[in-house]
């Protein structure tokens, strides 16, 4: 049952929010009044002000651009600021829990530092020599459409959250995760970049762990086609280098390695 609110109407809605810390971890029920056009983050703010001022939650822009307010709402990984109350069933309490793929710091706040460490391991941008005497480059719009898709990423880590390799198997130290495959693709496919990250993709970032389940693609709030546009092409490049028999033979007989 979905209730539509109009104008000055309000309704009281129940929320089950995960509270943790000091060795407790449990859902606690809160109630707050919902008005037209509210998003889940608005409800959480109200609950903070009305009943739980120590409720830990990350947020910043409230407009789907900073990627801070990632959580799991009724079990689905979403940004709290882009989840409209209008779209939520209100006949049962709405559950809000932190991302499950990362250790919990407190309540809805998780330790996402592993993502920052994984990013640092990927070799940085290395441009070719400038194309023009004034030190600038020339790139066609059609050449950059691909990487511009990847660079829309707001680092919300919802894709990381949903990937079973991280979420279920907890292989954070072996698999960099979909976000970092997108980051690597943005560099590898950058028209100006001359670095080769294929060794690292195979041995450090663990691209082999991805088995094309595509859960990441379904949760991306920026609609980046993660698996098809970033991961699979990278896998192909890695396969070219390490598994193509003709190319291996060629490498064996040429001076390059």
């Amino acid at each position, binding site marked *: 049952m979905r209730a539509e609110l109009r104008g000055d109407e309000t309704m009281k809605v129940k929320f089950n929010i995960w509270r943790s810390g000091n060795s407790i971890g449990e859902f606690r029920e809160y109630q707050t009044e919902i008005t*037209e*056009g509210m998003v889940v983050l608005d409800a959480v703010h109200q609950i903070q002000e009305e009943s739980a001022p*120590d409720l830990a939650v990350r947020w*910043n822009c409230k407009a789907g*651009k900073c990627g*801070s307010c990632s959580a799991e709402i009724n079990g689905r990984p979403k940004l709290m600021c882009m989840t409209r109350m209008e779209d939520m069933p209100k006949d049962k309490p709405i559950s809000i829990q932190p991302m499950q793929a990362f250790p919990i710091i407190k309540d809805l706040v998780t330790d996402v530092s592993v993502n920052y460490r994984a990013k640092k391991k990927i070799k940085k941008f290395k441009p070719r020599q400038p194309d023009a005497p004034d030190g600038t480059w020339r*790139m066609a719009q059609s050449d950059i459409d691909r990487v511009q898709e990847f660079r829309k990423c707001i680092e919300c880590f919802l894709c990381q959250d949903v990937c079973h390799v991280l979420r279920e198997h907890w292989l954070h130290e072996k698999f960099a995760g979909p976000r970092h495959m997108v980051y690597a693709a943005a560099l590898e496919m950058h028209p100006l970049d001359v670095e080769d990250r294929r060794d690292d993709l195979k041995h450090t970032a663990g691209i082999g762990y991805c088995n094309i389940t595509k859960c990441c693609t379904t949760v991306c709030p920026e609609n980046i086609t993660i698996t098809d546009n970033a991961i699979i092409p990278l896998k192909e490049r890695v396969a070219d280098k390490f598994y193509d028999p003709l190319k291996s033979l060629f490498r064996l007989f040429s001076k390059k390695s």
Partner: protein
Amino acid sequence: MAAYETLHHDVLVIGSGGAGLRAAIEASSKGVSVGMVCRSLLGKAHTVMAEGGVAAALANVDDRDNWRVHFADTMRGGQYLNNWRMVELFTKEAPDRVKELEAWGAVFDRTPDGRILQRNFGGHKYPRLAHVGDRTGLEMIRTLQDHGIHQGIDVYQEHTIVSLLKDGDRIVGAFGYDRGTGSFKVFKAKAVVITTGGMGRIFKISSNSWDCTGGGISMAYQAGAELIDMEFVQFHPTGMVWPPSVRGLLITEGVRGEGGVLRNSLGKRFMFDDIPENYRSQTSTDEEEGWRYIQGDKNAKRPPELLTRDHVARCIMREIKAGRGSPHGGVFLDIAWIKEKISNAPEHIKRKLPSMYHQFKELAGVDITKEPMEIGPTTHYMMGGIKVEADTQMTTVPGLFAAGECAAGLHGANRLGGNSLSDLLVFGKRAGEFAAEYSKNNPETNINQSQVSDIMSWALAPFERGLKNGNAFHLQSQLQDFMQNLVGITRTEADLSQAISKIEEIKALIKEVGCDGNRNFNPGWHTALELNHMITVAEGIARAARERKESRGGHFREDFTEKSAEFGNVNISIIKSGPDAMEVKQKPKLELRQDLAQIIEEMK
């Protein structure tokens, strides 16, 4: 007794948005040890919200552009109250800073011949804004972040600085806490750079992120630094107005740059009714010509929707107050109409303004390719802040530097769109450079232990007070409400005086509210502490606004509606003159250098 950890760096950067990252990168490139504190997670500062673009006279789209035109545009927009030396450095150096971003991996939209594309924007004579769709801020912060993480900078994520530390007159570091654990940290440094951004969150309706509470401006003031231009708050004309939860959210000026027009409830393009004197020569009076300008006709004049933000905001307020507004209390911004002019209008709109399309669709259920948007003014940017020396970005406190939105002088009484992103790069770089140099040329610092103990006790006091007098969120709400009503777009002597007395009440109440729970990630505690900064900045704005008895740029007085020659020659300066005493003074502005005055004359 609570303990604290001491961390040592040569340069400490407080704030990790565009300016902070650029400063940290520059400082560390000089070989000094750099620590950068971010309140939120790295790469999520308010810079990500910037949509329009980064203004620089690259002249890629119109070769008539150069730094002199940009200089004249910026001074005109600032109503000639700008620090002209800052404007000179800014307009000269912006092109190099943008090219540098590309060298670090930024991918801007391209011209047909493969160079960085530039778009039109309010107050800029020629197309000047390098951009990536409507997400240039994200591109900039991500590029700086991805470059910066390999520079050896120590990043302290989710740490909040609460106070600067001094030894006599000199800055020696800062005191703060880890937001996750609540543990205290003392950062010992030889030079400190403040890059904490704006203060929009002290108003109810604002485009600003949670981060934007003016903390750095307040801390600099408390440390004895001079503030200027605090009365100049920019109210961006186009924020969302409905539904209530998105009220204030920004709609980029880029919509108007792509042909969006403003209409009242009668369907009239009311901007044509009121074109200010000093912009008459470059503004068209004809709808057709306005459209030709949007299309890139170099001989056409710009439509009045692309006049400066302060003027557009006031025109919109006038329509709303006169009862010609939209159903939810705004006016209409319409881009769907361009289907009369171009054949694939919906695709064009979605490609040029994807975030706007997405934002309206997801949050308001409005398809901007089919229907007009309801918009109204929103608190957006702070032109005022910490006074800095133009070349070095050093404040009036030795060893303390500031750059970006929290610093003042570049934008004068009103900022042009696109000038903020390039401000961050130009002055972030200078602040980092000179902070590094200062740290190399000055001796080690000493932390005063008892000063630290005092701050710690003060920081822990909210826990002792508990919740018997209410929580900090309620008080914050009250502050936001009266700032919105009394110190907003239109100001009066009576309102401003009332605001000042309310501020005094809140100051007393801040000492009574508290928090419960423990120090682990406790937003109630964080807000109780942050309120001290918000109230200081609020007081600065209200007092400066009361002092300036004229209307100019972003500051509009209903009781002094015209510009005055007398006030046109002064900046309002604020300094701490005693424990609870904010001193307000009028200071004559620096006389414009002859060659620069010449440029302004030529461009009139």
